[in-house]
């Protein structure tokens, strides 16, 4: 295997890439088979958006509540925290107590943000 230009590292990610395309290939294949054997009887009424059997009312791409947005923002804060947590957690043996105190401080500051959001009432879903 020495003559191959790709390192094992990149090679394994190539495999990941191949599997990523597999989902699209499989769905494409299934849709193609279905296209060959399914009936196709066009009727105007079939293509109206479903709204429990009555004609759809108003704009279908409507605006939604802000609370989803607030939760998404909170999520980003903690997701970034996790990005820092993982490298730290693999090297904890080497860092010892020094790493422990620093990460505790980091987690504590982020917990304050959760407590702040909690006190502000954004965690209440209403």
């Amino acid at each position, binding site marked *: 295997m020495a003559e191959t230009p790709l390192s094992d590292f990149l*090679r394994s990610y190539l495999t990941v890439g191949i599997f990523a395309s597999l989902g*699209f290939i499989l769905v494409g294949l299934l849709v193609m088979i279905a296209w060959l054997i399914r*009936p196709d009887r066009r009727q105007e009424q079939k293509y109206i958006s479903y*709204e429990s059997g009555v004609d759809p009312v108003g704009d*279908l*791409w409507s605006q939604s509540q802000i609370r989803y947005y607030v939760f998404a923002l909170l999520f980003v804060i903690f997701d970034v925290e996790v990005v820092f947590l*993982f490298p730290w*957690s*693999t090297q904890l043996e080497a860092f010892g107590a020094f790493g*422990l105190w620093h990460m505790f401080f980091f987690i504590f500051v982020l917990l304050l943000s959760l407590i702040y959001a909690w006190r502000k009432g954004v965690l209440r879903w209403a």
Partner: protein
Amino acid sequence: MIPAFAEPLLALELAYWQETLIKVLVGLAAALGLTGGVVYLYLFKFVSFMQSRLGPMEAGPYGSLQLLAEVGKWLQKEDVAPSRADRVVFGLAPAVVLTSTFLIFVVIPAGPNAVIADLATGIYYVLGVSSLSVIGILMAGWASANKYALIGGLRAAGQLIAYELPLVLAVVGVVITVGSLNLQDIVAAQANGEIFGFTGIGNPFIITQFIGFMIFLIAIQAELTQTPFDMPIAESELVAGYHVEYTGIRFLVYFISEFATAVAFAAVASTLFLGGWAVPESWGISRDAMHWVGPLVISAKAVFLVGVVFWVRFTFPRFREDQLQTLAWKGLIPLALANIALTAVFKVVF
């Protein structure tokens, strides 16, 4: 322990493309085979017996071919997309969700060498690709141009990101204990481990990381949008949520990926907390034998954990949306952070 006919197979040197082709075929067969088995076992039979009925009995012995009949049925259905839908995004969404599922299977080890791509980032990669499905679901909800679908898609996104955090934080405890993200290292650490000098069962992290295991199970229940966390597809209020406008084979793809993801997450959970494909080192089973015992062990553990998910699914009623968010943000996330702190202290002190 290896059958004689298989020995030349192990000695074969394969080119990359040959190896990948075999991996794709075996990986697909394992993923879809296990998913089909789980759907038959739990969704058709287990729930039927819980509800005092027989379930499918006509197709094949004890209805075992029901699933094939279902696929045949869905393939013949007309493909209807609403005229106001965004056609391209509408068509791509199921594939994105399915891709997210397949990508999880890539790193789950089923034996000493039986892993599709042995990434050093292992579990971190799993958590990354599993959240790709949120994009697919949002695409479906938005592109359908339907109010139910939009609400369902938003609910799903809100729920999936809220439970992504406990899921990820529960894993950190295991990573601290092992000191590696690679799933093979995590398996090895459990097989070689000891509990106060007792090596009889290794050290499955379900014992030392029990809080993490419970948080992980609750989080995968929510990530899979199974009852009691099924508000995104709540039949009685949103009809079917983000896939209300999907018909035929595209609709089926959502179901395939839902149950395949259940199998994938169960396999990840059993790798992290139940010892994965390995049996304790002290049992003295040779590494050669593990090449074929390993896949059976991990499959059995994964099928068992999927059973727990379905057991909960068919036992509990649906939560309200606010209860769901409260549980994640005020319950599971602080608990998971406390678990991390506790684990870190134990790791450094001992």
